[in-house]
């Protein structure tokens, strides 16, 4: 089984709730400083993709975390074996005891998903494994005000997206992300 995400781009509104819910649940920095320019690690971020121009302009909002790729580039480049892909669910995780903070994974990832933390090691989205174990959805999915973001096995997500124009995001690393637009 491969776990992943499904984002309905006809629903995502770019409200950043997923980003902040992730920080809140996973206790991420920045914690006390609101100094302009100080940025913390973002396990999930929101992108705005614009095209066209008035009066035919388009803005697509995209909420992106780690895609838990089928062939994760980060795992391949890690010199210490700190990054691994779990056999049973395909979730890509970092072993903090092995990571040396060289950031090769960050450079290798097409999405910049692994983040360098203040402890000097890499950290990243782990699909909220703790919440999954309690039968809950990941914090980003659970918090989505537009109900645009879903997590689960790719097969189940594909069923959820059926009837919509959807496809698994293309890429050499086989991202476990399904994107859809309207019917």
């Amino acid at each position, binding site marked *: 089984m491969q776990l992943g995400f499904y984002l309905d781009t*006809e*629903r995502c*509104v770019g*409200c*950043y*709730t997923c*980003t*902040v*819910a992730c*920080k*809140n*649940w996973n206790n991420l*920095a*920045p*914690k*006390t*400083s*609101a*100094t*302009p320019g*100080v940025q*913390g*690690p973002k396990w999930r*971020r929101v992108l*705005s*993709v614009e*095209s066209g*121009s*008035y*009066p035919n*302009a388009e*803005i697509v*909002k995209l909420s992106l975390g780690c895609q838990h790729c089928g062939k994760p580039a980060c795992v391949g480049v890690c010199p210490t074996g700190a990054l691994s892909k779990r056999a049973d669910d395909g979730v890509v995780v970092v072993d903090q005891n092995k990571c040396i903070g060289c*950031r090769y994974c*960050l450079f290798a990832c*097409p*999405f*910049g998903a692994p*983040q*360098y*933390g*203040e402890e000097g090691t890499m950290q990243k989205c782990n699909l909220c494994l703790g919440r999954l174990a309690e039968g809950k959805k990941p914090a980003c999915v*659970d*918090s989505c005000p*537009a*109900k645009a973001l879903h997590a689960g096995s790719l097969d189940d997500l*594909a069923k959820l*997206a*059926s009837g919509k*124009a*959807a*496809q*698994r*995001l*293309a*890429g050499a690393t086989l991202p476990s992300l*399904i*994107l*859809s*637009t309207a019917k």
Partner: protein
Amino acid sequence: MSQSFFPSISRRAFLKVSAVTAALAAVGAKLGNDAPLLQHALAAPLAAGEETFGYTYCDMCNQVPKCGVKVYVRDGVVTRLESRTNYPNDPLCAKGMSLLQEEYHPARLLYPMKRTAPKGTEDSKWVRISWDEAYDTIAKKLNEIKTRDGADKVLFMTGDPKEMRPPLQRLAYTFGSPNYGTESSTCARATQVAAMLTFGFSGTGAMPSAQTKTCLIWSKNTAWSGPYDMWKLLDAKDRGCKFIVVDPRLTPTVRNLADIHLQLRPGTDGALALGLIHVVIKENLYDADFVGKWVHGFDELKEYVKEFTPDKVEKITWVSAAKIVEAARLFATTRPATWIGSASPTVHSVNAAQNHRAILSLYALTGNIDTPGGWTLATNPLPTADGAFNRYREIGVKMTDKRADIKAFPVWAEINDEIQVNLIPEYVKEGKIKAGVFFGVNAMMWPQSHEYQEAFKNMEFAVAVDYFTRPWTHNFVDMILPSATALERMAPLAVFGRQIFHRKPVVKPLGEAREDWQIIFELGAKLGYGKEFWNGNVEAGINFILEPVNLTSEKLLANPEMVAIVPPPGPEQYKKYELGLLRADKKPGFNTPTGKVEIASEVLKKHKLDPLPVYKEPLESPISTPDLAKKFPLILNTGSRLPFYTHSKLRELPWLREIMPHPVVRISPADATKRGLKDGDDVVLETSLGSIKMKVEVTNLVMPGVTDIFHGWQQANVNELIPRKFDPISGYPPFKEGLCEVRKA
């Protein structure tokens, strides 16, 4: 590529999603870890004890009712939170998700403070005092003024949030002052003035129900200003409801909902509404039966809108004539139809009330009032509605002659219990107000904000209650008091229809913070009204509110979910105007002088104002001030909402501030090219009244010729660029009617 997952999709739809993924691949290259530098001081170290949880409702935005929060606590410290399930308003947004960063912020105000430097100096030299000293000082000052000049010389005002409104109103009237006001003087109250004049009830429409076929959203970006409602709208669209969205911007609400987007020039809402009415009347699409029976002023309106042809309205509003016709036909013929208005976009104008009345008139012509799937009104509101508690009908209404706003804004004063506070500088200069008690008030909410700072400074005494020291405002008051947060307080109740939610404080207040209601109750007792304020006991006050529904605070808290559902006395009823349920005299009709929907307002006529919803060009515009427009060619559109800040609040929270670290002006790619600007450049935003420094964001969100600016940045307060001109009916300022230019800094 796993196209095989989805064999059934159309070629066009597939191309659309392919375009998104291609665009994503292009931006993917730019992504990286943008933050290797971190400051890492844990505000609330994770403790090892057992994790428990509690419930509260969020106050990070200024809306009522509020979203539910489930709060996890370890050893008395909040560790994290999530949306509360099985609660009427959910889920939380990014702001609510940051509640614990506010709770444990190192700069939180935790003790009562008095200034030891003169008001208006940069460093107030705050010195900690005891609550007793604070209350004694306030009571002495207020009673002194009351004895010498009259109780009405004291202003009681709330800003953000709204939770302390009922008790402060009660305190004002009990003390003897009719001068109670709120931030609604620049927010939503003008829409309510317009609705009261037109329908005799207030409101900004209704969410689509299962029956609704068309929904007109007028200038509301629900996706960002009320995210908890967005999924409901998207679900309505999935059910087949058609959406018409009026907005100058290509917002996510427009992008994800609109079947027709009416992208108008800011400030021309009135003209657009009259243009739509023109089509509806000309093509006989209105509900003739409803109009014949229940509308007052139809013939005058018909005559007035003759000139608002689609072609003419296209020239005024920049919306194409074809779209105006298409939208008018869809809205008027695809019933039941509802509408959703916003708090303020249509009324941030010196023609506020009339602009909004034009929209309401359009709605009235379609007859969708209080019908299933239309704009429904509550049949059985709870008898706990704060009318009795705030003592307006008992005392406040008898002191009308002493209202500070009675001469300047007589229509507002006739309709609203709270006063219009936008003339505070004048009230202070004229000696009508000599002291102020402020809860969560920020001087940045007004145009020419510095005049309000000056007015606070010139009061004999002013005290402010807040979570943080906010120099922009507090540099001009005598004393500041620490308020307990939503995680630390009990009052007020949260009421949704006939459901009443209560809460226990989730954690103890930090420092000596006290909840707003407690501060007001204790101050009331200190001022000599111990009986009226239950000697400072908040729970006793809540019990007073709950009496009519035979509940108590204790009973509510005994329920595991701290909720009670009060059964309605009868079934939901529609078309209440036919049943005699809208008027005090129980006669059929609307609660207006004529008993009808007053497109021609008798109240306005009485006050010698135009009774029809007439259009006026914005104060400054390419049409009204063409010479000024040569120098300042861009429309100054301010006051829009962001999904992570509320007005001037929340800039101190790290999780939110990293999303937008600097004040931003948004302009279109076309306008950026013309000025040689690129995204992220430092720019100067200039109007005839001055300039501020901002970063430019180049985006399709705004159309060419228009800007989009969020307010509330103290280092770039756009309200300083807005003139102090006010709508004679509502007293509203022209936040969306200016002209400006943007150039490289």
